[in-house]
């Protein structure tokens, strides 16, 4: 160890450059990972919460009077699943654009709240809304019907995460505004989404069979939504753009490290030629080169984790001003450690190739 530190000290200018290169390689990776996880959460919040399974369950030939029965049936048959209607977009003359979501049950999920309480009753015209619909609890008119706002939906993790819920309005299915109920009845279609952390197929089958016992003419179709959601998640141009910068920085910094390591090995080629001439094997040379670069990378990683920890204390402010979210997470730390190893390995490639190919006699003669 002392030998490694001594060698690093001799080439300190080179290693200072490498240290900054490694720092600006590892830190952006950590920031990119936590930002990616933030925007993944953002995406799933826009789908009303993260679950392992999402199924679209579309009911055809529905009548207005069926809604209460469907809600009761969903409440009794879905024990481990959350069921809600697909988003119904309406424009209220006073509120403007409103995204209405009808709850069929609220056993395992209800909208996250910034203030107030969940809706519990499906008889008392209770709703939860985003901040743009109502910024405090109380009574409001929605499509000419009076409702009581019990809670304000949102997650206090930056403006974007609150905005996801801004125009949403959550209400039990049988308490949907009459105008929406009429539109559902006119179309005869009720699209719903079943979400669960366990496979909900059994619960869906039970629901469908009981629904068809109630009214055999109702036709139900099921579609797995995971591929659609994945496609939507991957096609977010804004997120792609945000994520491109840290990875560009990683690439530029890594290329710089490779260039500097090339200079380092060029300056040290006589020393390595001598080692080779004195019988050092390629493995010995690899260990010698890699250990120095790895130690430098470990120091840079330590510094990166420290900066990440400091910035994570200001995560909300950072995300609101720069759109990057910085948090500390166990899995990200593990990936960070692996990245440190990979960066040191990649930086050693060119020096190693150079040293493996060097002819000691020729190099020593220069």
């Amino acid at each position, binding site marked *: 160890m002392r030998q490694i530190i001594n060698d690093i000290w001799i080439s300190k200018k080179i290693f200072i450059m490498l240290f900054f290169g490694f720092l600006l390689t590892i830190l952006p990776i950590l920031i990119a990972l936590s930002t990616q996880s933030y925007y993944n959460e953002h995406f799933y919040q826009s789908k009303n919460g993260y679950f392992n399974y999402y199924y679209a369950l579309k009911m055809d030939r529905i009548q207005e009077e069926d809604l209460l029965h469907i809600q009761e049936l969903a409440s009794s048959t879905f024990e481990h699943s959350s069921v809600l209607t697909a988003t119904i977009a309406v424009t209220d003359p006073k509120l403007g654009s409103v995204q209405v979501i009808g709850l069929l049950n609220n056993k395992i999920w209800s909208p996250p709240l910034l203030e107030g309480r969940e809706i519990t009753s499906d008889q008392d015209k209770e709703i939860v809304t985003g901040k743009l619909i109502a910024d405090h609890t109380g009574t409001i008119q929605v499509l000419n019907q009076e409702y009581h706002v019990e809670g304000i939906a949102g997650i206090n993790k930056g403006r974007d995460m609150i905005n996801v819920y801004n125009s949403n309005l959550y209400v039990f299915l049988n308490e949907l505004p009459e105008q929406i109920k009429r539109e559902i009845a006119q179309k005869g279609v009720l699209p719903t989404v079943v979400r669960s952390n366990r496979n909900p197929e059994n619960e869906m089958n039970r629901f469908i069979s009981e629904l068809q016992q109630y009214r055999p003419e109702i036709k139900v179709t099921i579609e797995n939504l995971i591929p659609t959601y994945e496609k939507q998640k991957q096609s977010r141009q804004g997120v792609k753009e945000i994520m491109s910068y840290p990875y560009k920085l990683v690439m*530029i910094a890594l290329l710089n490290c490779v260039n500097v390591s090339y200079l380092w090995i060029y300056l040290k080629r006589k020393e390595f030629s001598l080692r080779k001439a004195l019988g050092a094997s390629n493995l010995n040379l690899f260990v010698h080169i890699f250990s120095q670069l790895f130690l430098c990378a470990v120091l840079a990683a330590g510094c990166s984790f420290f900066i990440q920890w400091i910035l994570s204390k200001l995560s909300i402010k950072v995300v609101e001003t720069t759109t990057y979210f910085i948090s500390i997470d166990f899995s990200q730390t593990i990936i960070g450690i692996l990245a440190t190893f990979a960066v040191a390995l990649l930086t050693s490639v060119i020096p190693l190739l150079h040293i493996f190919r060097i002819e000691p006699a020729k190099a020593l003669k220069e």
Partner: protein
Amino acid sequence: MFRIKNAFLALRIRWVISILLLIQFTYGLSTITGTSNIFYNLHYMNSQSLLDLDSTYLVVPDKITDELQKQYTKNDVEEIYDNLKRHPDVVAYGTYYEDNVILDTKAHPLDPQLIADLTNHFLGLDEPIIRTIVIDEPYNQILNLKFTDQDFRKNSNDETNVLVGSYFKRYYKIGDIINAQYKIIGFLPDKYIVNNNTSNVYLKLDKAMLIPMPEDIYTLYDSMISRLQFNTVLKLRPGADLDQLTQMIQLKGDSVPLGIHNLGENIRQDIKVNAYLEIPQMVLGLSFILFSVIGMVVTTIVSIMIRKREFGIKLALGESEHGILYQIIIENLIIAVAGLGLSLLHFMWKYKGLLQFSSDMNLASPLDYKANGSVIGIVFIILLAVILISNFFIYLFIRKQELKTLIGGME
């Protein structure tokens, strides 16, 4: 020529690190092109408004709804404007609306380039259009344009005087008539104007047209109520009582309240937010500059070390240190220029959609991406700075070299 040939040979010898440096330049300069665009646009927004930023205020509804204001009359709207006219804090007020004038290509053959430039692919239109702001007489006074009182006494189908953007100078002259209706009486400065009170993007005037509002539309109730809510511009004295004016512009019993926002504050806030959003890009840009300098210095030092005998012999035969530096600068310039070219190609490929959108919509906004002379100029200056700084360090390195060390064993 000989030096250039030598430079290419030198780059071939150190091709691995030269390619790495080229990749670094490509991505780095591409990012800097994006950042330069944003800051160029922010500067443009701060300095090129046709309206005075400090004294101009926009009437903005709190919410956008589709409720039609049927319960009011023209008199209600006129009363609000009369009150504004009498208020001591109000210097002037005006209203406008945005329109698209479709160019008649059948009756009046037009230059193909004009048609291509004015065809809005983003809006999916097949015909060329001129984005137009139709202004009323009081707004004309705020803008201090060339229109006369008589220009505002005409109806929709009458021939009317218009002002067009500087782009049209290539195709029209004063006195020409567009679509047999719009007579050009002058050209607009290369500035931007508000085209939607509820948005934070603005219409650039270079490809736009300003038209006096026809009398029949000015007095139409639907247009009046819509203009009051969405398209009213106020010019106020400093320290104006905004609360009182806000109350004054409300239609009694209207569920959607109207607000008064200062244009300058809106723009400056937008600039501030976007400047903060650029922090990551700036970090990337600065890192690129730092790494490019390091990269250039490092690769050149390696190159000199590989060819130390060549340089040693040149120095021994009477070549000056400057001559050696000149040779090195040529090598670095080749990489830098190739990197600049590749970075522009990368930028145009990556932001193809945004560049097309910017070109079609012609809006003043932070994201009005373009690869014009100004932006490329900024990128070139940054590149030049990188080359100068790195070559300064290389020069210091060359000066330190001794002839004896360079030619080694050939003394």
